[in-house]
């Protein structure tokens, strides 16, 4: 088989961090080669070297047998290498189509003028090919994260490269979109394109990968065929030991007192009369398709966005939540789905990010901060959550994606809230850390905290939730018991508006499947 | 390099008036064999910048200092320092409220502006509306020229009404815009006084752009002002003797360095010039381009 790319003995250090040493990778034409490893293993760094973003310290890169120096993204593109970045790299003020064709705009008038009509038409064509209902003229800023991810994917695909690097392309996508993406990958494979695929979703390996290369601590571990290697083997290679077996599903909570009651929450078409009750010690999973409005509900409860109507009671006391500060004071925490934009002060260090939600607790006489106590707290959570960072003084933006996510979790754990809303808590998190976070959520519930968990991964929802709330188009279409089947959930998730709206009026664990039958 | 060194700190340096003072100082420097430097802040409101310049000049240990104070009180500590270091100080352009300067070579701006007021009154026929465009609201020269003009009108020409007094920073463009607004607001304006070169040019520009007819009296000189007087667009202007101020300041400094007696007050005088006398040699000598 034709070898497209061969990287060997790659080394790369950042100040204070040795990200790669002796890393290796080989990509053949027409294969999907998965690159696996824990958060911070160096996957993104290796690929950034291949796509001309970072310069390697040592090692060689061969592209189709020729040694190459890839000094810039432009050179990588010229060599036929394009990359879908883990962290979205779009221009929010430009439209979807303009983003896709940046640098390659169709022109007219002696190459000076933009041919906007053709630009939009070409983009629409690509979108149609991907079965994506998206207006090419929409500014990217106004798209949800998932749709932005689709734009990013479309952009990379439109380069028609021979080597396509996908760094966690599905982290923000729902099942249908993932299917669509895999169909595209299959077509690319048939055309002889080599795809490098990075993901933390283990189940995807078997579906699309031909070979799997595993990295650990910046070093090459092994390359194995996907078809004949078990997931457990790969996990063992990744973490250097085998993980404890699967958790059993959560035990149902017996008639615990209600903590949070939401009734009649409403804002335009985004939230349409949502009501539910959350109990002490309960994990209430929120399922739904992209754009179902789960995030909107969470932000509304938290006071991040205004609501038109609705009542929120905590422990029987009515709350007037106008700002996040009111919610936090009342004991509600919200872990947002977009950590970069809403979760982290990326320019600040780990310690301060951990302490950000409760600096008051670390403030002594005259506004003085107790740095020692802050450090202790940060170090405690670095250990507890396994946050991979050289020290608690490292800037948050220099952590790998998954570790940034853990950092946000640490922030809310430290705050010690009564009600915690986790919005996509495991997005971009490796298997090991994922089970760590699952255990954490379960423990938190066990301790008596009430948890709302929004997730687009059904297995996750099913595994953790005591009850499952399902949303569709801004409405709560029903609340199912923990053991519900995937089919039941999907039925509610696609139950488009028929007549009127309905929801849980606070009736405890009673299944609401019949809501709008 | 045994020439005595005289540091001149003026109120400005980019404006033509100050460049003329500098030219006079340079002339004296060449003729009398002294070394001079000349500097001043960007605008006449920057009192503290001028103080810094004075401080830097002191560090150069000059044989004498020429100083045109933007605010004489503010400079007193440094002037005392000069006195202690036995560096004679010559005040120029306007006085310093202190007995430290051994001499003052200055124009009496109050009297000069009063003369402009008298000329204005005569030219507009003793009654009607007039306006002032001044370069600065708070600097000594700005205040003196404004007050000199206004007080004389009030005291001697009661039928003349001053309808506007505005400040354009001496910036040609801003002065033009302000003058235009004044002219638009007062369609029956009979005369306008521009209290320095930039202000006067602004008035002329405005009158020209709006195609109006009125009595314009200016201050200082410069090519366009002289041209406007010859054309009749400007009735006349007050001129000081900037070249003389520069020259006499250096001359007095040299005398003071040598320990010779110096006149305490050197009145460098002012003149009113118009179409009729602009080419007379005594006037010509005090005008600059």
């Amino acid at each position, binding site marked *: 088989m034709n070898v497209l790319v061969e990287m060997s003995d790659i080394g790369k250090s950042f100040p204070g961090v040795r990200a790669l040493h002796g890393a290796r990778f080989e990509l053949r034409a027409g294969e999907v080669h998965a690159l696996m490893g824990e958060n911070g293993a160096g996957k993104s760094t290796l690929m950034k070297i291949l796509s001309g973003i970072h310069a390697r310290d040592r090692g060689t890169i061969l592209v189709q047998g020729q040694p190459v120096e890839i000094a810039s993204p432009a050179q990588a593109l010229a060599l036929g290498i394009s990359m879908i970045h883990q962290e979205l790299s*779009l221009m929010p003020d*430009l439209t979807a189509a303009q983003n896709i064709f940046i640098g390659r705009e169709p022109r007219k008038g002696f*190459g000076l003028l933009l041919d906007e009509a053709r630009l939009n038409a070409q983009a629409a064509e690509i979108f149609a090919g991907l079965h994506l*209902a998206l*207006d090419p003229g929409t500014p990217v800023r106004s798209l949800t994260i998932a749709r932005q991810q689709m734009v990013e994917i479309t952009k990379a695909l439109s380069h028609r490269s021979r080597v396509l690097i996908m760094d966690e392309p599905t982290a923000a996508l729902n099942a249908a979109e993932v299917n669509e993406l895999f169909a595209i990958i299959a077509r690319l494979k048939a055309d002889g394109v080599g795809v490098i695929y990075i993901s933390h979703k283990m189940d995807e390996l078997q579906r699309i990968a031909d070979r799997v290369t595993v990295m650990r601590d910046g070093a090459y571990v092994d390359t194995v065929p996907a078809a004949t290697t078990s997931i457990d083997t790969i996990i063992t290679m990744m973490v250097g030991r085998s993980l404890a077996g699967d958790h059993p599903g959560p035990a149902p909570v017996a008639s615990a007192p209600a903590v949070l009651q939401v009734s009649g929450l409403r804002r335009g078409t985004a939230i349409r009369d949502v009501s539910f009750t959350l109990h002490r010690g309960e994990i209430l999973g929120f399922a739904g398709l992209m754009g179902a409005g789960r995030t909107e509900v969470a932000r509304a409860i938290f006071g991040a966005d205004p609501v038109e109507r609705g009542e929120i009671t905590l422990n029987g006391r009515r709350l007037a939540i106008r700002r996040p500060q009111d919610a936090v004071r009342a004991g509600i925490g919200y872990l947002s789905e977009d950590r970069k934009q809403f979760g982290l002060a990326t320019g600040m260090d780990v310690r301060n990010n951990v302490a950000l939600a409760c600096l008051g607790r670390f403030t002594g006489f005259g506004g003085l901060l107790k740095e020692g106590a802050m450090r202790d707290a940060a170090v405690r959570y670095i250990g507890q959550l396994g946050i991979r960072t050289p020290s608690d003084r490292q800037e948050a933006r220099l952590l790998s994606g998954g570790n940034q996510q853990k950092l946000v979790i640490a922030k809310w754990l430290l705050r010690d809230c009564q009600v915690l809303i986790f919005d996509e808590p495991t997005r971009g998190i490796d298997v090991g850390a994922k089970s760590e976070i699952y255990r954490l959520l379960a423990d938190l519930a066990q301790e008596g905290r009430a948890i709302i968990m929004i997730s687009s991964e059904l297995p996750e929802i099913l595994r953790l939730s005591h009850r499952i709330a399902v949303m569709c188009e801004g409405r709560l279409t029903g609340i199912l018991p923990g053991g519900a089947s995937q089919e039941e959930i999907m039925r509610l998730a696609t139950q488009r508006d028929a007549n009127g709206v309905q929801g849980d009026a606070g009736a405890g664990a009673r299944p609401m499947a019949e809501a709008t039958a | 390099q045994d020439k005595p060194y005289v540091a001149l700190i003026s109120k400005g340096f980019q404006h033509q008036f100050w460049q003329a003072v500098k030219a006079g100082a340079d002339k004296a420097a060449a003729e009398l064999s002294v070394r001079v430097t000349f500097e001043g802040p960007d605008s006449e409101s920057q009192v503290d910048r001028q103080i810094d310049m004075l401080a830097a000049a002191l560090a150069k240990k000059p044989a004498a200092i020429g100083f045109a104070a933007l605010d004489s009180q503010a400079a007193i500590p440094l002037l005392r320092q000069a006195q202690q270091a036995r560096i004679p100080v010559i005040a120029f352009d306007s006085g310093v409220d202190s007995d430290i300067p051994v001499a003052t070579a200055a124009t009496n701006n109050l009297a000069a502006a009063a003369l402009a007021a008298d000329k204005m009154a005569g030219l507009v026929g003793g009654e009607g509306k007039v306006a002032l465009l001044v370069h600065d609201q708070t600097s000594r020269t700005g205040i003196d020229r404004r007050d000199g003009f206004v007080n004389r009108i009030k005291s001697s020409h009661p039928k003349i009404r001053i309808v506007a007094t*505005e400040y354009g920073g001496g910036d040609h463009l801003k002065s033009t815009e302000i003058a235009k*607004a004044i002219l*638009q607001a007062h369609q029956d304006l009979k005369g306008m006084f521009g209290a320095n070169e930039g202000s006067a040019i602004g008035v002329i520009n405005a009158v020209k752009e709006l195609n109006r007819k009125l009595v314009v009296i200016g201050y200082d000189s410069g090519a366009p002002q002289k041209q406007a007087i010859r054309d009749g667009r400007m009735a006349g202007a007050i001129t000081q003797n900037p070249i003389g101020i520069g020259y006499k300041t250096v001359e007095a400094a040299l005398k003071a360095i040598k320990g010779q007696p110096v006149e305490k007050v050197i009145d460098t005088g002012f003149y009113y010039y118009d179409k009729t006398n602009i080419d007379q040699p005594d006037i010509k000598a005090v005008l600059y381009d």
Partner: protein
Amino acid sequence: MTMAMPKQVLLAGSRLSGARHRLLAFSSLIALIVIFSLAAPDFLSAGNVIAILQSTSVNGVLAIAATLVIITGGIDLSVGTLMTFCAVIAGVVLTYWGLPLGLGVLAAIAAGSLAGLTSGTCVAKLRIPPFIATLGMMLALKGLALVISGTRPIYFNNTPGFTEIAQGSLVGLVLPALPIPNGVLILFLVAIMASFILQRTVLGRYTFALGSNEEAVRLSGVNTDRWKMAVYALAGGICGIAGLLIASRLNSAQPALGQGYELDAIAAVVIGGTSLSGGRGTIVGTLIGALIMSVLAFGLRLLSVPQEWQFVVTGSIIILAVYIDILRRGKA
């Protein structure tokens, strides 16, 4: 599986709201005009309107230059002194060297582009923050203008037709009732050109892209340095036009003038709704911003508000105007 969105409706909706917003941005300006014309009936006289437009021309052109740079996420503090520098260059070419008018015009614009290119190179290649690069340039150009001119104004008396550049009226020749000065015409031409470049050309696309997410543009394989330099050079060329305008109005190149103009220009840009963090902005907004500033200045003078109070009122109204714009945008 994604929600089927009625595309046409959405598109139309967003277009409408865009247009509506632009209309609303006018509202502060119109409110000012209405108030002033009620308070001073002369305010809307032809002479006055022309005077206001004329007084907008220089600041307007500078503000357009600043807009381009600000959309890339940068800032240009050198617009004012660069204008002066270009005026001086025109003076040298036309008066000292006695070359024909066309060459003077060319020289001014070329000098502006060159200076802009220099700032752009400092920003793009040397990675100097735009604030510092253009601050240094502002000072250097101020000094150079003084050095080259010999610290004295250069008059254009030997160049017949030079004053026509800003003061003549081509429109007046055709429509004698509407003697709009050429300076105003030039402002609008520059605005149309800049708008066209921003909306329709590759350069414009990269101007927005750079301000929106420079790193993403670079990752897309675009030579961001080159485009950024091009934007600064274009802005510099426009400052050259401003230099010609002011020189023509004053019939002279005044080397001492120019510092402080950058703040007025940037203020017009920001009042016009362009964000200082880059990525968004319109030329129309900038024009409105510049007009708001000159209407305010002219109107307050017309009402004979004492000058110290003019500052107070201007400051408050600028805040108010932007606040109203923000309120309306929130609702729209």
